């Protein structure tokens, strides 16, 4: 599976969500070495039945896991990345975009739309790490902001599922501006009485952690998810500190007070349904 460059200085060195191509088959569990057929893994919500390791989940599959069957209607799919800087490193940015789209079948690193979960209406904004490392450029920011507006207009909560290496470097300063842009959209959603339920999948780092993903009325993470502003290797290089074993992991963040809960994937749908019921009752 193609992996986008991870694109934020703060996060480029994090453990990839899956091992580099060639190291191991993606359906081999890095936790216990068990190997699964694709259909087995899909049925198990991509959680290793043997050791509980949470494999990465793409945006479309995540939506299938969470939303009631047939309830999802995509919104803002027409929003696509442009190339405002004419960015060219070893290859042109548009080429990377095309490659990511071909690999994932997605227009960009986030999929948004309306859905119901156990019958409770909501809006979903689900990121996909496989699209250029889940990096946030103008298109991701715009789609997230529109999801906030759609939720506010409908008077329903927004559920975000993040998986991102941070801001998309190829859009330069405009990528950084997606932080305040998405935050302003969350603030507007709040002012309308709406709620943001934020789910952090592995990894949620850099500019996404430093913007909407941290601002949920409720913030939960999947077990083992890395959630740090700077990545472990950057921290180790910069500070020459020895890192704790669970540095930046959900478990460490829970201990330090940054998470409301760590929710294993099989419990995610009922947990979100419970929260939607609570945030819908007045």
């Amino acid at each position, binding site marked *: 599976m193609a992996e986008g460059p991870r694109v*934020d200085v703060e996060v480029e060195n994090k453990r990839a969500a899956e091992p580099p191509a060639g190291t191991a088959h993606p359906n081999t569990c890095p936790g216990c070495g068990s190997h699964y057929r694709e259909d087995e893994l899909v049925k198990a919500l991509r959680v290793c039945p043997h050791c509980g390791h949470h494999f990465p989940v793409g945006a479309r599959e995540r939506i299938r896991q969470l939303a009631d069957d047939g309830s999802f209607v995509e919104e803002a799919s027409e929003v696509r*990345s442009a190339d*405002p800087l*004419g960015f060219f490193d070893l290859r042109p940015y548009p080429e990377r975009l095309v490659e990511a789209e071909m690999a994932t079948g997605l227009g960009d690193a986030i999929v948004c739309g309306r859905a119901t979960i156990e019958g409770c209406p909501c809006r979903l904004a689900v990121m996909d790490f496989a699209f250029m490392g889940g990096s946030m450029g103008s298109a991701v920011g*715009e789609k997230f902001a529109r999801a906030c507006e759609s939720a506010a207009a409908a008077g329903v909560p927004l559920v975000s599922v993040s998986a991102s290496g941070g*801001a998309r470097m190829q859009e330069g300063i405009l990528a950084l501006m997606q932080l305040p842009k998405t935050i302003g959209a969350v603030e507007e959603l709040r002012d309308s009485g709406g709620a943001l339920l934020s789910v952090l999948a592995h990894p949620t780092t850099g500019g996404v952690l430093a913007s909407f993903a*941290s601002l949920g009325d409720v913030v939960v993470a999947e077990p083992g998810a890395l959630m740090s502003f700077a990545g472990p290797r950057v921290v180790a290089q910069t500070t020459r500190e020895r890192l704790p074993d669970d540095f930046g992991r959900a478990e460490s963040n829970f201990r330090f007070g940054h998470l409301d809960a760590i929710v294993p994937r099989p419990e995610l749908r009922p947990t979100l349904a419970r929260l939607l019921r609570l945030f819908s009752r007045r």
Partner: protein
Amino acid sequence: MANEAELRLRERLSKLGGMKLLRGAKVSGEIERLEKQLERLRGERGDEEIWRSVELARHQERPYTLDYVERLLDDFFELHGDRARADDPALVTGIGSLRGRTVVLVGHQKGRDLKERTRRNFGMAYPEGYRKAMRAMALADRHGFPLVTLVDTPGAYPGVAAEQHGQGGAIARSQAAMMALSVPTVACVIGEGGSGGAVAIAVADRVLMQENAIYSVISPEGCAAILWRDAGEARKAAAAFKPDALHCRELGVIDGIVPEPAGGAHTDHDTAAALLGDALVAALAEVESLDPVERRRARRAKFRAMGVFATA
């Protein structure tokens, strides 16, 4: 996916390559002097000129926040501490009188000698620094004092304790706090505007940059190390992502450029401060007549419009 899909994508690719640079946000009116300055700067800016900004923005004689404070703010009283855990010296907050008017100041602070640099952590704040900033913002809002922020950081500190204490969340919340303020706010990047650690205190009604400041999503070295796999290609990276003031202005990310003395702010701190003071006062004047609710609405709308994307 078949050949047909690939063809469709190739077509889109060619379109994207030909797109013109757009302005993400409406550029607001500016005072005449700044326009002239801009005029002088305008035109194709070479890669060398961009790199010169990077060097000047990091010049070790460049004025830092407290250099401006002592020249611009009377009766300055520094506010210390986050009321929870620590006082972060990499980020300074305080109250002072800017040309007769009480304002709250928030700014990153680097050190000039080695000892001070270490103490100030090279201007790289911990979450505690951003929490102190939020406290100062709340004080401004409570008393109707305008907020002035000065941005000058390589980035938020990437350390174990900083992560444990919630660096990402603190940066997010600081931006949210600025989004919610009722008072007039102005931010100016006076040196390095490095990534999340910079924008954390730069969500203002008016965002300015000094002529030789830089504002970027990543450092040139960091970008080069990732994309060129060679930190030595920093010049190439800077030329590619264009962190200089003029390009930030063109992209609609900032509202104005603050002139520096010829040769750069480091050549004449007093003149640099006077020019900065003029720009801050002018920027506040532009927004202070607005109703607080309208001002906040306009602030959000400004950032809401930032970004360049296509609609396929």
